[in-house]
Each structure stands twice: as C-alpha cells, then as structure tokens.
C-alpha cells in the first residue's frame, strides 16, 4: 500500500465541471477522499451524483477542473487504464456481462496482482455462492448488485466508487454490506466514495458526506455531525431554498452554491445570501482542515 497517504489524499477533486456534450450538469465541485476513508455522496434524483462518479472513473472527460489520485492527475484518462491503476467503479447500470457466469466475472476481474480470491469475495457476499454457475443475466436484481460490488472488490482497488450502494438490496443485506465497505477501507487502505439514497444509512457508515443539489455542492461535513441534523439535510436536498438555513450553521458546515452562475429552474435568489460566500462555495482550506481532524 502506498506510503504517501499523508502527502496527498487518495482522491482530490478541485473545481470540477462535469456533464454531457460540453454542458456541465455538475459545477465547481471540490471533494476529497482520503485513503482508508469512507465518503458518502448524497443528493436528490438528478443532482449529478452519477455524473460525478462516472467522470472520476473516466467514462466522461471533465469539462473543467482537476481530478487527482494520490497526487497525480487522472482527469480524462481512459476508464480501462484507470481501472488497472486501481480505480474501481460500480456503475449505476451495473454493467455486468449477461452471458458470463458469476464465477467467470470474479475470475475476469483479476488484475494479475494481489487479487482477492473468489472465496474471499464469497465470504463477504455469501448470497452469491449459490449463483456461482448462473449467468449474470438471469440473476435477480439484488444478486446482480452484489455481483457488481463483488467484481469491483476483486482487484483490491485504491479507490472504490459505488453508485447507488443499496439499490435493490434487501434491508438485511444492506445492513451487512455497509460494514464491508468500512472493512475494505481499513483493511485495504481503499478510499471509498459511494452514492446512497438512504441518508441515515449512509451517514451511519461514512466518515464524511457531501450533498449535491442541482449539480452544486450545498453541504459538506463529518457524518457524525450531520447525523443529528436531519432538518438541515432535508433542506439541503431541496437545494437552494435551503441556503438560508445552511448559512445559519457553524462555519465548518456552511456550504452553498456559486451565486454568480445561472440558477437552476425555479430557483429564487434568497435575498440575504451572504456576500462572503460568493466565488468560493466551499469555504476555505482551513475549514476543511479543521473538519477532518
């Protein structure tokens, strides 16, 4: 495992604009994931979570800004190259190979290095055991999700990106899967960034959480702290109407969007939005520094 953890975070995103056909749907995103850290990316439907993850994994080139892994720039590099360097994505569509069996998936995902053997994956996801010889296409929705996660773990990724972690999984499985994320992070030193719709659940496992709304970061904070703030979270989900409440919070958690850019539809500029936030939606470096300690 890399030793320069202290120098550069596993993943550092600065000023990222991401979107389709040159039109950003995510704007000016700043985000960090440390090695061994589990970070949740939250937000309402259509907020831009998938866009962010897929851009990090190289499926789309960033429109502006930088994405760095362990201090070196990875923005815009091909997905398969990033995958070989340890960026592992569980895509929203899962992207399984319908005609290949579960066992073949787990074999194929090996990188030839220090891989997880099939047994170790099955130990984490025992439900897959009975499906080993089935083709991925015939699995149930939840089984497919487990396979997608399992496949992503095989190569012991440096950076694990999971879109819609609990999609289609039974509550009892989710309950077991979340600690696995934690285990992966601590045992392998992986930086984990995951998207999750079930907020309380996400905050339970994550160290840190970011909330996107209409493509902008509106809230960022240590999960522990956000856990009690369900009102605030709810407000930030709804997006910019929440700005008022957010500004009412202690500095470390106060986040809102860049007021100079075009507001989204239905957006009404809150009259009392503070000038100090203009141009730097994320607060200062020291803010973040204090948060992480």
């Amino acid at each position: 495992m890399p030793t320069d953890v202290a120098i550069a975070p596993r993943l550092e995103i600065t000023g990222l604009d991401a979107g389709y056909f040159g039109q950003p749907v995510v704007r000016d995103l700043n985000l960090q994931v440390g090695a061994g850290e589990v970070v949740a990316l939250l937000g309402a439907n259509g907020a831009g979570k998938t866009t962010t993850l897929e851009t990090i994994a190289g499926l789309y080139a960033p429109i502006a800004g930088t994405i760095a892994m362990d201090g070196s720039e990875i923005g815009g590099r091909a997905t398969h190259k990033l995958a070989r360097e340890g960026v592992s994505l569980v895509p929203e569509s899962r992207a399984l190979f319908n005609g290949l069996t579960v066992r073949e998936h787990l074999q194929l995902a090996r990188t030839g290095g220090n891989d997880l053997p099939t047994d170790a994956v099955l130990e984490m996801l025992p439900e897959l055991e009975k499906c080993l010889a089935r083709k991925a296409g015939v699995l149930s929705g939840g089984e497919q999700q487990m396979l997608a996660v399992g496949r992503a773990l095989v190569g012991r990724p440096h950076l694990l990106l999971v879109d819609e972690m609990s999609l289609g999984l039974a509550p009892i499985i989710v309950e077991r899967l979340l600690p696995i994320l934690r285990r992966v992070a601590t045992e392998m030193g992986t930086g984990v960034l995951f998207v999750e719709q079930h907020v309380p659940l996400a905050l339970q496992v994550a160290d840190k959480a970011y909330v996107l709304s209409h493509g902008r970061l509106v809230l960022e904070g240590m999960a522990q702290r956000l856990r009690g703030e369900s009102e605030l979270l709810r407000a930030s989900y709804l997006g910019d109407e929440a700005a008022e409440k957010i500004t009412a919070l202690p500095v470390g958690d106060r986040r809102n969007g860049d007021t100079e850019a075009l507001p989204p539809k239905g957006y009404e500029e809150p009259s009392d939005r503070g000038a100090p936030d203009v141009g730097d939606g994320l607060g200062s470096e020291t803010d973040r520094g204090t948060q992480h300690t």
Partner: protein
Amino acid sequence: MSSYILFLLLGLGSGAIYAILALGLVMKYRSAGVVDFGHSAVAMFIAYVYFGLRTEGKLELPWAILPHEITITGSEMGNAPAMIAALLYAAVLGLVMYLLIYRPLRHATQLARICASVGILLYLQAIAVLDFSSNPKSVPTILPDSPLHFAGVIVPVDRLWFAGLVVVLATALWSTYRFTRFGLATRAASENEEGAAVIGLSADRIAATNWVLATVLAALAGILIAPIATIQPASYTLFIVPALAVALVARFQSFAIAAAAGLILGMLQSEVTKLISVIDWLPKEGLPEAIPFIVIVVGMTLVAKGMRARGEIVVQRNPSLGRPSRPYVTTAFCFAVGAIALVLLQGSLRFALISSFVWICLALSLVVLTGYVGQVSLAQMAFAGVSAFALTHITGQLGIGFPFSFILASLAAVPLGIVIGLPALRLRGVNLAVVTLSAGLVLDSLVFNWTWFTGGLGGTKVGNPSLLGWNLGISSGNAYPRVIFGIFVLAVVCGIGLLVARLRRAPAGRMMIAVRSNERAAAAAGIDVNRTKLLAFALSSWIAGVGGVLFAYTQQTVSPPTFEVFTSLGLVAIAFVAGVGRIGGAVFAGIMMASTGLFVTFLNREFNIGKYQLLVAGLLLTITAIKQPDGVAANPPPPLVHAWKWLEARLFYKSETAQASSTVAASAGSEH
C-alpha cells in the same frame, strides 16, 4: 450408391471454405459486433496477393489507378514463403481496416457497420476487376491432391485435408474462447463494453486482435480454395452468402456449429447437383443454390425462440428517427419542386429523375421497416419484382385496366411480405437480415427463374397505363420520357411519402417504434408485438410493390435481373447511409441510388466515371457510413440546412420559427 458418396465428399471442398469463412465471421461478430459482408472480398483480394507473389513475386496493393504493384523477387516464389507473406499481409490489412473503419463505428448501429462492410465489398471487388481483370486465374495446387480410394470411390485427398483443417481450426478457436483469459475477455467485452472498461479491459484492443485473426482466417480460406475454384472476383465475393448462412446457423456464436454447418452445406449442395441429374422433375435452374437456404430459413425460424427471456435482452442502438413536423405542407412543397424539375430537365436526365422517384418509393418501404420497426430486410427488391411481374399478368392475361391493375399488382407483394416477415417474429437483428438475404436468394434462383412467370431473361413488356383513354405512359409516339408520366409517378410517391410521414406520429407508428425499442415493454403496454411486426412487413412490402409497379411502367419491360438480391443489399445500404429513419433520407437515397438514378446519370454524363463507378460507390458508402453513422439526413450538409431555414421562414411565416433551435432546423431540413 458410390457416386452419391463421391458427390458428398467432393462437397467437402466448398464446405470447408464456407466453414472457415464462417469461423471468421463468427469471430468478428463476437468481438466487434460486425457482420462483415466484405469478409469474402478480403479473402478474394488476398488470394490475388498470394497469386501475385507466387507466380511473379509481385506484391499487390489494395488500390487502383495509382501504381499498385511492388516487385519483390521478380520471379516465382515458393509456396510456403508466398503463403506466409500473404497471411502477414492479411494481418496488416485486417488491422488497418479495423482501425480505419470498424473502430470508429463501435458505437454506431449494427446497420452502419453492415453498410461500411458492403462498401468494402464493392471497393475490393472493383479493385480486383480493375487490377486483375475478371478473367479467372488458376493456381497450382497447395494441398496434396492425390486420389484416394475410400468406400469404393476415388476422391481427391485434398478434400479430406480441407475437412481436417476445419476441424482443427474450430477446435482451436473453441478452446481459446472457452478456456483462455483472452477468450473470456472477448466474450465479456462484446457483452458490455462499459463493464469491460471498469475492470480494466480495453474492448478496443480485444476487438482489434480478434479482427486480425479473423482476417488471417479469411485469407487462409481464400488461398486454399484458389487451386480448386480458380480466382475470380465475382464468384469469390459471393462466397459470403453461404458463409453468412452458415454463421447464422451458428447464431454468430458457436464455432463448432459453424464448422459442422459449413461442411454439411457444402456436401448438401454438391449432392443436390447430383440429384438433379438423376431426378428429372426437379427444376434444373437454381435448385442447388436454393435448397440449402430453404432448409436454413425454415430451420432457423423453427428453432428460434419468441420473446426474449430475462438476461437475453441486448441493448442495440437503432437508426435515428426524424419527426416530420408539417407533413402536408412539406409534401405539397416537394410535389411542386419535383414537378418543376420534371419540366426543366430533358431527355436522359428527365428519365433519371423519374427513376429516382421510383427509387424513393422503394427506399420509403425501408423507412417503415428498418427505420420504424428496426427490422432489416434484404428482400425488398423481391417484393418489387413480384409486383412488377404480377402487373404483366394482370394487364396481359387478365386484361384488367389501369387503376385496378396498379392496385392489385402492388398488393401482390403483400402476402410475400408477410411470409418473409414470419421469421421476424422469432429472429432479430443480423440473424433476420441473413434470413431475408437467404429468402431473397431463394426467390431469385427459383421464382424469378420460372419462365412462365417472368418471361425469361428477355423479360415481359408492360403496356402504358391509361385512364379512361388518357395515356399516362412514359412514351407516346416519339415523346419519351413524357412529363405527364413523371407527374403521375411523382404524385404516387408523394402520397406514399405523406403516408410514411404521418405514420411516424400516428398510433401505428408509435407502436412500431415501441416494438423496435423494447419488445418486452411493448407487450406490457398492451401491444401485440407479432402483429405489429407483420403490419410493418405488410406495409413495407406494399410500398415496395408500388415501387415495383412504377418500375415496370418506367422500364416498359420487366426482367428478372433488375430484382436481384444484391440490388436489395445496395438499396438497404444506400437508404441507410442516407438516413433510413427519415423521409428526407429516402429522398436522398432515391437520388443517389444505382445506375439509373439521377446522381449517377449526371456524373456519367459530366465526368464519364464509367468503369470506376463501383469503386467510387464502395468508397463513398464506407466513408459516409463512418462519417454519418446516423445517416446523411440526420445531419444534412449546412448549406442545405440554411437554404431550408430561409425557405421555411418565407413559406410558413410562423412565429414558432423564431424559437426554432438548430436541432429543429436540422430535422425539418432533413425532410428534404
């Protein structure tokens, strides 16, 4: 008895070639999702390369006009070095073709790739004719061919070598795909490219490797068959048809089945040749070609499953669709423009314009079928042909008068359309394309060979249409081609165009598009998928039938070669690159299509491209497929868009034009 066995064994030769070609086709399909119609053309070209090296020590390059020969040894080369050099050459050629042509088309529709490969077929065939002439070249033997006594007959031993080679190749491929990581990766990458990327596989590199291997296989087939078949551009290129049929039996998936089916097909054909000579009530013409395909079409249809089960759904991109916004006004406008053009143009250009109208009608039949329902049919010309010949009988023997003869004859294609549509209920995509190709071929070699129906090669004359004594025909005395006939054709084609444009927004059209997008979901929305497909086939064959009747009136004599299955292939290819989901695409296709169309007539008159016609057509087809994978009409050239915008602003001074974004303009422009 023994002579039957002899014929069976002799068939192993061509059977082996079908099998080896089919193995390559399966590889290309499994790795890059391409059904390569140019596969056997590559085999043919490499055979010439081998021939050049072996006999004169010259290396042939894949182009014409420019210098295309490099002298290497200047004298005969040994068999082994020539063969190795030719196979290496094939590897390079394969890689270049993949990088230049198929790689850019990875995310395009299946049809875009088919069109590009048809372009390659035309190109290589044209080059072969230009560079090596169409005279057959005979090649010294490669495999040992001493006679062998076997079960009481004497067979050339090379046939057994061939069969053995097929078995070895198929086993090698099967085990590679089954047991190696490379094979597993190939299967994975073709299933889901995104999935491959996220686990670190480069779908691109995997496809390129497979492509090179498959090209080498094609080359091997081409070289080995040379001594028994003699090298000749057309016949070699035509190996693609049986090879595709064999690959179809293997569902473009199984190497073992491809190998077995190839050998069996070869033996079957050879045996039928024998049977014809013995059983005299069998038709002499076309049966050896037809029988295997009848077996394949019927067999494939019977074994195929209906609705896909879970996990069998393949996401495939479909041709992009237009959204005609003002069908009535646009049709009226087109009619006016067409009529003015008819009056302005004279002589051969006017005739070419009328021919283009007819081709537009035929291309419109594809807009319904391939555009809206996503079914590829290579039998459109057969529909047209049946109607055209039906017209000769309806007016001739039955003596039925004009408007009724027209209607009846065009409807004659419908039953055939429905029959050919039946496989579509169970087969999809490329599988269906190959089945319709085979069906078209069967019709070619059997039905269009019935002299009583077609009047033989010379064809049958068709009288002029006349309404209540008013002659609408193309000729009257010395007047030829007459404007009034052109107006008649134009009116019919505009009517059909309007129908197809309205279909896009009508419930029936929505049902069709729903079916092409997702059959499972369509059924959940209460749509009868099967009947919707059959409706599309019926409509499409009727429109093609109308085209056929117009064709008959235009040509005045109908003869079988006009309706060959390869004309259908050309029509599909051109209609596709022109934009098969749009009326504008059909119009464009009609103007570009074939030697009788406006574009070629004009080029010939002005620049005399004559013998380079195929070469140019092939190149244009491939390049357009790459540059405009959604069809020219989806992104019409900017000057046209501007012109249309300008006109639109003048013609329909509507306030909404102000807010028309560039995409709206593009789609509106594409109606022209």
